[in-house]
């Protein structure tokens, strides 16, 4: 099993795609049992090798095949399309089903050998006969050579014709049909690289407004850009930034303020950002501070120096909304993940692990205790396993089904239905 590097439901939730460090994409399909409960199962639907390792001979550098992001296109016909990207190249894949095959050729035998034309005495029309379902994935477009730095995000526009790809310093706009050209819409590379102090960490198109996108930075800011204003969106329309809390200031303040993920809400009115210790919800109409802040693992605040030393402080956690934007979810360490119910002001910590849980069993909430007396079932902050991190999570667009990726495993949880 390889390390999972991205997880994404398609727009109906019927398909779930995962990408891994080995460049493979595995797609799962939902199967709903109507009896006895409306339970869903996700089974492997298709597996294909999306990216291969490449070697840049000019620079003697290896280009990793790890899939950084997968984004589905809305379905337009029988086939499904998704974009998958590694550090340098984006590919558009078509996933289609084949459940019939032709039979009865005139010039070919059943096994494919050609017949001697002299032996043919009559003609017939070949017919399509049913066969076992076969799912084929074929690369339809390859968008290459547009990024000098490592691609961290791709986002399909609501116009269904264009998409953006973002690397550390630049964002490019592509048309899905055109592979030999892309437009650079954001460029934050300084003239002198020695002056570089900030990089782009994530970018996303607005779900409804095809002219609007946001990008987040390593300094904890989010810029909203309007493509109608100018071709190069270096000047933002809005800058979202929360002033620093002076009482919490430390040498690590900047590092932990670096935003690792940004996601618009489904309704397009809010966006959520994930930094190292918290999740923040922003109203697009208010730039000076978020409307909600949720602490993901406050117990780590006193451990920042150690987390800096072992590099965990640079871990990039993702976050996601549920279908109606009432709950947000993100991952943490020790295979814990957290959900915050915005309306009810409740939060829960759950664990994705095979050890203490059997299939169909309700997950037990977990708690981390900070020093002092450890209650039964609590886990102390020093016992947390920092190698077990949940960086990637996804929520079904309509139902309460979630996909949670630990390092090597994918867990799918759903609401208990009576």
């Amino acid at each position: 099993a390889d390390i999972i590097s991205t997880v994404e439901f398609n727009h109906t939730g019927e398909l779930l795609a995962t990408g891994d460090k080995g460049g493979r994409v595995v797609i799962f399909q939902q199967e709903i049992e109507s009896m006895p409960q409306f339970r869903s199962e996700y089974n492997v639907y298709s597996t294909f090798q999306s990216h291969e390792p490449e070697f840049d001979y000019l620079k003697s550098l290896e280009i990793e095949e790890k899939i950084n992001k997968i984004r589905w296109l809305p379905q337009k016909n029988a086939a499904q399309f998704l974009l998958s990207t590694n550090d340098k190249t984006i590919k558009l894949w078509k996933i289609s089903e084949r459940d019939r095959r032709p039979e009865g050729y005139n010039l070919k035998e059943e096994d494919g050998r050609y017949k001697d034309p002299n032996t043919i005495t009559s003609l017939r029309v070949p017919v399509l006969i049913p066969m076992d379902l076969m799912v084929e994935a074929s690369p339809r477009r390859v968008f290459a050579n547009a990024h000098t730095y490592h691609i961290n995000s791709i986002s399909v526009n609501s116009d269904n014709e264009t998409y953006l790809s973002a690397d550390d310093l630049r964002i490019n706009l592509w048309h899905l049909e055109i592979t030999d050209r892309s437009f650079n819409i954001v460029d934050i590379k300084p003239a002198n690289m020695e002056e570089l102090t900030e990089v782009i960490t994530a970018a996303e198109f607005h779900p409804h407004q095809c002219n609007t996108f946001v990008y987040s930075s390593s300094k904890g800011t989010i810029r909203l850009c309007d493509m109608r204003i100018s071709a190069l969106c270096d000047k933002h329309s809005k800058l979202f930034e929360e002033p620093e809390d002076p009482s919490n200031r430390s040498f690590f303040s900047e590092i932990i303020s670096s935003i690792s993920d940004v996601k618009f809400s489904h309704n397009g009115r809010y966006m959520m950002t994930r930094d190292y210790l918290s999740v923040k919800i922003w109203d697009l109409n208010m730039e000076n501070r978020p409307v909600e802040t949720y602490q993901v693992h406050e117990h780590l605040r006193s451990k920042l120096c150690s987390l800096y030393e072992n590099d965990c402080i640079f871990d990039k956690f993702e976050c996601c909304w549920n279908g109606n934007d009432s709950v947000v979810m993100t991952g943490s360490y020790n295979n814990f993940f957290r959900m915050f119910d915005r309306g009810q002001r409740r939060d829960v910590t759950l664990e994705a692990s095979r050890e203490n849980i059997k299939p169909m069993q309700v997950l037990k909430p977990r708690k981390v205790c900070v020093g002092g007396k450890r209650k039964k079932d609590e886990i102390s902050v020093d016992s947390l396993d920092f190698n077990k991190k949940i960086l990637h999570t996804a929520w079904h667009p309509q139902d309460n089904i979630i996909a949670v990726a630990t390092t090597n495993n994918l867990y799918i949880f759903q609401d208990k239905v009576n």
Partner: protein
Amino acid sequence: MFPKGTKRKFLDSAEDAATATVAGEQGPASTRTPSPSYSLQRQSLLDMSLIKLQLCHMLVEPNLCRSVLIANTVRQIQEEMTQDGTWQIMTQALAAAQCPTDRLVATEVLCRQSDPAAAAAAGQSPKPYPLVGGLDRGYHSEEVVMEAGDAHKEALPTQSYLAGPFGMGPCWEEEQQQQEEEEEEDGGDEDGEESEGEDVDERPEVDSRPGEQVFGTFEIKQQPPPPPPPDPALEELFSDVDPSYYELDTVLTGMQSAPKMGPYDLLESLSSHGPQPLSPGASCRSDLNELDHIMEIIVGS
């Protein structure tokens, strides 16, 4: 999470100090002296960060974001140390030592000195900084880190030094120069030509004066030090600063020819210095000790 008990103890107090509020120390910079434990922890954070930068090319995945964040942290520490005056002390002591670079003195000898000046005279070298300049090796540095001429400006304030690259320019340039030629029409052509021009101009500089170039980056003193005589260890360190596209192999061989110590070994040797005496002179000495120790290990004297 903590591999060694001793390290944990060291770091836990480092947690408290490093996350201590900087805002708590009000008042003019000249009258504000950081507590010894705070400055010790800050120094160790600085060392750790420098090592991380030095070794960033040994990561499985080169990560620009991480490098930028670490560099900003280093900058922040240095700014604070400059305000405290600690930075001046350290750099003065280092710059006062105009020793040939091949004379790395063992730390025991240094500990016996009674004051920083004597310690410096005993054979400290400003070597620690080129540590980071060694980043040059890991990346195809067509761009000059900083003009050597800049280094010898008279009134170069320490703050502007911070804008210097720590050898990070090349670190981040790893993929730019040639790729820019392939960039899209929109800005691509101009970019490509520009960087190509830069390439051609700067290659000879990178070639001929690697040592001075790297020293130049970190030189902030008034009197320029004499250029260090060629030193076999240094030669080895900079041997592959070469404009042609050297392979990763060269870099790796370069690293391997140094004593076989991984990044965590370096940290260990740092932390093994343990708590230092509290007087300012001694803390300065401990800084020197630590930096010198790192250098010793890297260069393999």
